[in-house]
């Protein structure tokens, strides 16, 4: 064997260690940029006056301000007094109750709006489909201040929606600064998320499975219910779970579009951090995290039980959008899509168009290029200490690409590690997902007090900052998306595919690249799009870790360009919109719809 066996080269040896090395790097990044900083802040929740205690948690649990009727029960109020309001379906007035309530509603709406989009993109062929598919996740990157601008313009008393409703003798709807506005804005962010993950699953459905069902006598609806739907549930549920987790931790949107009576947990954490009540802030954030992780854990348990098809050998053919025949079977779904697209147009497109219009108009409503002129002036004449548009664009793109280069391998590595079978791997999976669920404010605080101020080691302070730290922080925040879009596919691949490849001489890493990744490719591309989106949209870690304005990104430029009027910031927002839209088109084109692997 030693003489006739495969030749082992240096590259082989590197490949053989590749996964182990990646796992170590991933762990170091996660510990350095997430677990250690966050853990240091969380630690404070358990220590009051130098003694370990759970007192803070008990205090929260017994405070009706946070836990409403539940707290009253824990405090010892009689059940018969508490029960009626506990069982009512009214909006909970307690902070935790309200936060969960609005997250639940946001999740429902996001699914309702997201799944039809996935259906349209997965099953119909039309001009601009690929572009639309690429742009699906653009809303995901918009800073909330811009979403607020777009929504306020769209739904204001004399905005386009009410004008249109008035034309039909309807309305006006007073949507702004209500729970509904928050829920719709959350759907604006998260329906694309649901759509994108569902789409990846839909594109992976194998046509032959449906043909088999049809050949066995199942009608198209039955075939959908029995064959397609079961393969979509896990993805839809994943989108829903992530939506819940994100909207449970919502913060700026609530402040910008909701009235102060609509206070979420994260807003309260913000308040506590502002007044340096770190212990309380940490305790509340831990409660928030515990709820989010419970939901995530429940989902992961469910996901593990599913048999999701990884990529089918032959995806479903797309139908033309124009009905080939005027039968009910052809017309009904298209009419449904027609209605859906009107709603989607109002909720997704009009706010973004409003944003563009806002950047091009004065207070008085006349057209102007002043806001863009400002950007140019700032670029050309801005003082050195000021944030300038072009470096911000450049940095955003560079960090986005660098984050892709880090987060994709990280996410794929963690996917491989969490799809192996060992005890407690679901716990590892949940912990690996924590960056999605931990309060952004706490992460920011942790980064500040950890890497930014320096971590002390025997008299030395290790200070981590600058571009590399920014990319690391982005990667840590973004990689869970890769895990969630890639791991389910990997999980359901036949392990013998990898074993076959390895028996033929491929290292584990090589088998991953040659065999597994091509078979879960739609998930990889979806994950890449999310990573890029997270990196482009990231604000708080970037602004903390940047060691100079030359490392600032587009969202920071937007924030810095906020003045009395939002015009200049809005113009920068339009730049962000255009740049990211183009980027997503490029990512999808590079990723390809179906990649042919192999030789």
């Amino acid at each position, binding site marked *: 064997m030693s003489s006739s066996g495969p030749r082992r080269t240096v590259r082989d040896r590197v490949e053989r260690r590749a996964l182990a090395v990646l796992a170590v790097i991933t762990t170091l990044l996660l510990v350095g940029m997430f677990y250690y900083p966050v853990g240091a802040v969380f630690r404070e929740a358990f220590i009051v006056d130098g003694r370990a205690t759970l007192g803070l948690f008990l205090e929260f649990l017994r405070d009706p301000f946070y836990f409403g009727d539940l707290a009253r029960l824990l405090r010892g109020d009689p059940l018969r007094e508490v029960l009626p309001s506990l069982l009512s379906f009214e909006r909970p007035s307690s902070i935790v109750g309200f936060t969960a309530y609005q997250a639940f509603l946001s999740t429902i709406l996001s699914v309702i709006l997201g799944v039809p989009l996935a259906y349209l993109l997965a099953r119909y062929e039309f001009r601009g489909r690929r572009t639309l598919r690429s742009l699906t996740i653009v809303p995901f990157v918009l800073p909330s201040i811009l979403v607020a601008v777009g929504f306020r313009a769209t739904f204001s008393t004399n905005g386009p929606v009410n004008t249109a409703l008035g034309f039909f003798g309807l309305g006006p709807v007073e949507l702004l600064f209500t729970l509904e506005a928050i829920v719709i804005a959350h759907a604006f962010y998260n329906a694309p998320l649901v759509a994108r993950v569902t789409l990846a699953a839909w594109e992976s459905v194998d046509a032959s499975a449906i043909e088999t069902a049809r050949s066995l006598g199942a009608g198209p609806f039955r075939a959908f219910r029995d064959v397609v739907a079961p393969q979509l549930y896990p993805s839809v549920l994943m989108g829903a779970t992530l939506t819940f987790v994100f909207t449970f931790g919502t913060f700026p949107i609530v402040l910008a579009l909701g009235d102060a009576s609509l206070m979420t947990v994260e807003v309260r954490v913000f308040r506590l951090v502002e007044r340096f009540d770190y212990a309380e802030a940490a305790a509340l954030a831990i409660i928030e995290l515990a709820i989010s992780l419970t939901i995530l854990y429940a989902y992961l348990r469910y996901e593990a039980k599913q048999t999701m098809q990884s990529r089918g050998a032959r995806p479903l053919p797309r139908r033309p959008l124009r009905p080939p025949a005027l039968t009910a079977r052809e017309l009904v779904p298209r009419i449904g899509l027609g209605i859906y697209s009107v709603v989607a147009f109002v909720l997704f497109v009009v706010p973004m168009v409003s944003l563009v219009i806002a950047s091009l108009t004065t207070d008085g409503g006349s057209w102007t290029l002043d806001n863009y002129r400002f950007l140019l002036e700032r670029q050309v004449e801005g003082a050195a200490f000021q944030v300038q548009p072009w470096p911000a664009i450049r940095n955003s793109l560079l960090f986005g690409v660098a984050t892709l280069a880090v987060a994709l391998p990280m996410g794929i590595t963690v996917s491989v590690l969490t799809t192996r079978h060992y005890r407690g791997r679901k716990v590892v999976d949940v912990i690996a997902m924590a960056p999605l669920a931990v309060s952004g404010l706490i992460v920011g605080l942790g980064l500040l007090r950890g890497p930014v101020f320096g971590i002390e080691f025997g008299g030395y302070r290790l200070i981590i900052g600058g571009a590399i730290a920014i990319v690391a922080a982005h990667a840590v925040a973004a990689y869970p998306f890769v895990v969630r879009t890639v791991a389910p596919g990997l999980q359901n691949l*036949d392990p013998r595919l990898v074993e*076959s490849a*390895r028996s*033929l001489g491929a290292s584990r890493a*090589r088998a991953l690249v040659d065999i597994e990744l091509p078979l879960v490719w739609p998930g990889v591309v979806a994950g890449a799009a999310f990573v890029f989106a997270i990196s482009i949209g990231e604000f708080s870690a970037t602004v903390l870790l940047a060691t100079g304005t030359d490392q600032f990104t587009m969202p920071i430029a937007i924030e810095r360009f906020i003045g009395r009027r939002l015009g200049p910031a809005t113009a920068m927002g339009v730049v962000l919109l255009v740049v990211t839209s183009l980027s997503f088109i490029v990512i999808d084109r590079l990723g390809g719809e179906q990649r042919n692997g192999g030789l």
Partner: protein
Amino acid sequence: MADSEQLGRTDDHPPTIVLDDVSRDYGATTAVDGVSFAVRDGEFFTLVGPSGCGKTTTLRLVGGFEQPTAGRVQLSGEEMVGVPPEERDIGIVFQNYALFPHMNVRENIAYGLNFTDPPDGQTKAERVDELLSLVDLDGMGERDPDQLSGGQQQRVALARALAPGPSVLLLDEPMSALDAELRERLRVELKDIQQTLGVTTLYVTHDQEEALAISDRVAVMRDGRIEQIGTPREIYHQPATRFVAEFIGDNNVFAGEIEEMDSKTLSVQLAGDAPTVVDIERPAEDRLSTELQTGEEILFCVRPESLVVGHEKNALNASVESTEFLGETTRVQLDWNGKPLLVHGDETVGERTSVGFDPKNAHIIERE
């Protein structure tokens, strides 16, 4: 510990595959329990046993897909502990073939050639063509796996495994997804190919008939242990245990006590209500590990084809319970004092009959 026969030291060449007291535990359960065997260069060696007996785990231990909790695995004289599959110079065919669905037939077969040069200075393309023709799939290279029949897929998987010229071929129930006729045809082809290439082959099946038909030697496994290793004939005619006797082919196992014996014959009082004494041939001295004693409880078996209706020797009176027409023969199940017996014949149900056997066709089983 492994004895010399298990380690196959009768051959001049060093064995290609050696397992020495290998165990594999999963927590509290032991899938493979102290297994030892050796496979000679070019040998076709089969692990057979019921599902859950540990045969597939044993194969996976050889392939490096599992690591033993105890014991040693050697391939071509090299220790394999900690060596990953890709460095073991093996080829494997799985039950479901595990063809790469995103690659066509040619790409599948060529995959292993990314990591090693084709033998004899061939180009990749030449090697793939050679294998396509070896497995009788000339011209099918551009097809996708899902356009192939089950048998064709199996042959692609075989060609893929053989392409890099591995020193060991591992076959994990490669026929079990195929229909019976195809299975019989393919196993002849498989044996041909194996002999042509002379590649050492470890074959795993639950089908004892297939094991006997195709193998040079067979190891029968049960509950993680090897019950017996031997040529198909040895396994069939001289089962070492009651399990082997009953698992390999149809068999009639009798329990009894040695009443008398001389140098050639044992008189055995069969267990049961009606006292019946039969004579069986005394085995050669060196075949048994312990010396037989009068009064000793023993097991012996008689194959259905040796239990002949109307045979005068050792006649047993029984009634016909059921019959099963198998074409060449009819399998008849008899009831003898409440104990089922299998014979071949053309009896009809309900009939009373007498069956007997030649003492030399009885084989003493050493272990329960």
